């Protein structure tokens, strides 16, 4: 599979391509946004062609260095060039490309008056095809003859590198050969000296050693094809038809790999991985499930998958990627597993910037970048929650946000396939980086954010479906009532029978609220139980909500529903209670924020608050309500 699966899909992509000149930003900025979507080779070509019609050179004020890349090879490479240019675009880098006349790369290199020299490249990609490299190798050859051929071909490659470096004075990227030859012996192919398959494997190994000596970088499409499957990269039919070694369908991946190198050469690889916690680093919600309840560690496949992801993140940090945490949690809850959970791989000391609070994540990510004193465009943010991902993408388009499923086994794959942290060398400084950042930690970087949340919420097309308690929902209702700790005003626990009793009680109502948005169905996310008292007060016996949907106006929308149901029962006032526990501090001022008047406060911190229904005006929110 060569799909750029870590990039998000964009529904209105074609319409936005058509309106490249009239979109919200400049033509270049609009095109950068389109390059950040998951597109196949056809759309990649379309984007490239449109943009090149509109812009003949890099736009004014571009912060990155334009690149002139000569792509040299012995087969057809034309179909790969748009994908290379779009991969540059994705990284805000303008790339011009040049391709040698078919089969003429050596002649053009040697001739200072050639079109290649006139192009004045700033970088060279040498993409030699596997058939050319193994020309003359046959199974009939003895080991000595094969070794002679190996020396000849490797020295020819070395000479080409030197020629490119000395005459064009620019860095060289050498494409490893695609291992497309079929075996003749089979599993023990290595025993046949004249096997082209075995020869190519040895050649790729030799070339890597030689590249170290010559200061040349490698484009490892052999490794990539091993992961994706050779068939995804090479179509023999296409070779016979058009002498194209790399398939069109693999072009976006090929281009992106070149783009990573171009960006890395300019020091523009991503530097920091920002981790969400709940359901990203461990399974479950630490504030609700507690240390014993989260899924992490041996014993469950899911728990082991989270461990594996943590291990990958820690390995990244050991080679110089900075780790940070951005989580919606009470800080004490969020740090507890890092300090005390026996199966945590990541420890508090691995995290250079740790932000856990209830503010919006875009603002928090800005704070992390400030604290670490690095650009926002060097951050990668991974979160299982599509709401958070899309908020950050909209507010901070320069932050990379990989598209992931809810399956933690896919998280390391997404980070690796995206190549965010492409590195060209490893220094001692890289290995010590996290501790350096840890030293100058400054929590005061948490400034007020300027995130445009209302605009985001409006665009979410949220729908809240309110249903009275029913048998179908019983299991989820009871589960939420017994599991929710943080956003839970009274923490009253009820059994199946208790919930069924609410359904049957004419002076009570139970509401289960389901939230949908344009990214999907969040499921039942809030539960309310109201009980009419003899004095016509409606007591809000239970109000709990999943923390996943905080900050999305579910609270005032739910209050509108409570008020409507209370009025239906003949109530005159709403009475809300707050019963403090160790974990529900976040809802201490819940009723005051919603316009209730706090009447009584007890010494333990609990309170009762009242809202007069006669004067109540339903709050206006961006959520459309459906009562079902």
């Amino acid at each position, binding site marked *: 599979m060569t799909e750029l699966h870590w990039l998000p899909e964009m529904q209105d992509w*074609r319409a936005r391509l*058509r309106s490249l000149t009239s979109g919200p930003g400049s033509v270049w900025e609009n095109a950068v946004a389109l390059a950040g979507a998951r597109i*196949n*080779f*056809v*759309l990649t*070509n*379309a984007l490239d*062609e*449109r943009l090149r019609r509109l812009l003949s050179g890099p736009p004014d004020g571009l912060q990155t260095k334009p690149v002139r890349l000569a792509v040299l090879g012995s087969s057809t490479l*034309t*179909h790969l060039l748009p994908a290379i240019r779009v991969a540059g675009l994705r990284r805000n880098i303008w790339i011009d490309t040049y391709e040698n006349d078919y089969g003429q790369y050596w002649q053009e290199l040697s001739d200072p008056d050639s079109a290649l020299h006139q192009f004045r490249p700033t970088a060279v990609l040498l993409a030699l095809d596997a058939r050319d490299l193994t020309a003359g190798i046959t199974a009939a050859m003895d080991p000595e003859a094969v070794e002679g051929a190996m020396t000849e071909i490797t020295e020819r490659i070395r000479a080409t590198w030197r020629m490119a470096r000395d005459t064009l004075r620019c860095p060289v990227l050498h494409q490893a050969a695609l291992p497309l030859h079929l075996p003749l012996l089979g599993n023990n192919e290595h025993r046949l000296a004249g096997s082209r398959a075995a020869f190519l494997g040895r050649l790729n190994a030799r070339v890597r050693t030689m590249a170290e000596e010559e200061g040349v970088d490698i484009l490892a499409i052999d490794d990539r094809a091993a992961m994706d499957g050779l068939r995804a990269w090479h*179509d023999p*039919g*296409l070779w*016979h*038809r*058009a002498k*194209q070694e790399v*398939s*069109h*369908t693999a072009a976006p991946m090929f281009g992106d790999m070149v783009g990573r190198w171009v960006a890395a050469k300019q020091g523009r690889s991503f530097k920091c991985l920002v981790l969400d916690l709940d359901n990203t680093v461990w399974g479950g919600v630490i504030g609700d499930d507690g240390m014993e309840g989260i899924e992490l560690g041996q014993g469950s496949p899911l728990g082991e998958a989270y461990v594996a992801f943590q291990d990958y993140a820690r390995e990244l940090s050991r080679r110089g990627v900075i780790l940070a945490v951005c989580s919606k949690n009470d800080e004490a809850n969020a740090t507890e597993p890092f300090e005390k959970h026996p199966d945590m791989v990541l420890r508090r000391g691995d995290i250079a910037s740790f932000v856990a609070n209830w503010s919006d994540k875009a603002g928090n990510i800005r704070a992390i970048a400030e604290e670490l004193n690095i650009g926002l465009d060097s951050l990668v943010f991974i979160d299982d929650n599509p709401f958070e991902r899309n908020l950050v993408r909209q507010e901070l388009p320069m932050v990379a946000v990989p598209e992931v499923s809810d399956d933690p086994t896919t998280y390391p794959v997404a980070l690796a396939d995206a190549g965010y942290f492409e590195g060209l060398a490893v220094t001692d400084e890289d290995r010590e980086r996290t501790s350096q950042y840890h030293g100058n930690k400054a929590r005061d970087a948490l400034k007020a954010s300027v995130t445009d949340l209302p605009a985001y919420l409006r665009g979410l097309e949220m729908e809240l479906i309110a249903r009275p308690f029913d048998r179908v929902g019983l299991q989820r209702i009871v589960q939420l009532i017994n599991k929710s700790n943080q956003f839970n005003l009274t923490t009253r626990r009820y059994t199946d029978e208790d919930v069924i009793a609410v359904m049957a009680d004419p002076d009570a109502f139970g509401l289960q609220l389901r939230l949908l948005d344009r990214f999907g169905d969040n499921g039942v996310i809030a539960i309310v139980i109201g009980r009419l008292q003899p004095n016509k007060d409606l007591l809000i016996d239970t109000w709990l909500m999943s923390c996943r949907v905080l900050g999305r106006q579910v609270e005032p929308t739910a209050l509108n529903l409570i008020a409507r149901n209370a009025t239906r029962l003949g109530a005159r006032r709403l009475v809300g209670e707050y019963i403090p526990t160790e974990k529900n501090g976040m809802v201490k001022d819940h009723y005051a924020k919603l316009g209730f008047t706090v009447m009584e406060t007890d010494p333990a911190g609990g309170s009762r608050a009242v809202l007069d229904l006669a004067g109540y005006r339903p709050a206006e929110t961006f959520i459309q309500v459906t009562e079902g």
Partner: protein
Amino acid sequence: MATEGEIYPALTTIFHDVFLRDDLTLCAETNAKDVVGWDSFKQIEIIMASEEQWKIRFSTRELDALRCVGDLVRTIAAKTGGG
């Protein structure tokens, strides 16, 4: 499974993307002479985009036999079991 009726709209989208034109309408007789820029390079793009779209792979013989859009649609339908 894709029937010929289902294939035409998706194939039209592919043509629009490949030729950067929204005004192309396809019929069975449409061939390379009718569309400006439909060269062997674009032909490969159309073929590979179709392979990706319908998760099929054309044989060399099938590709050599294509003369017009109708041939392509019939081949796709046959390969997906919709023909």
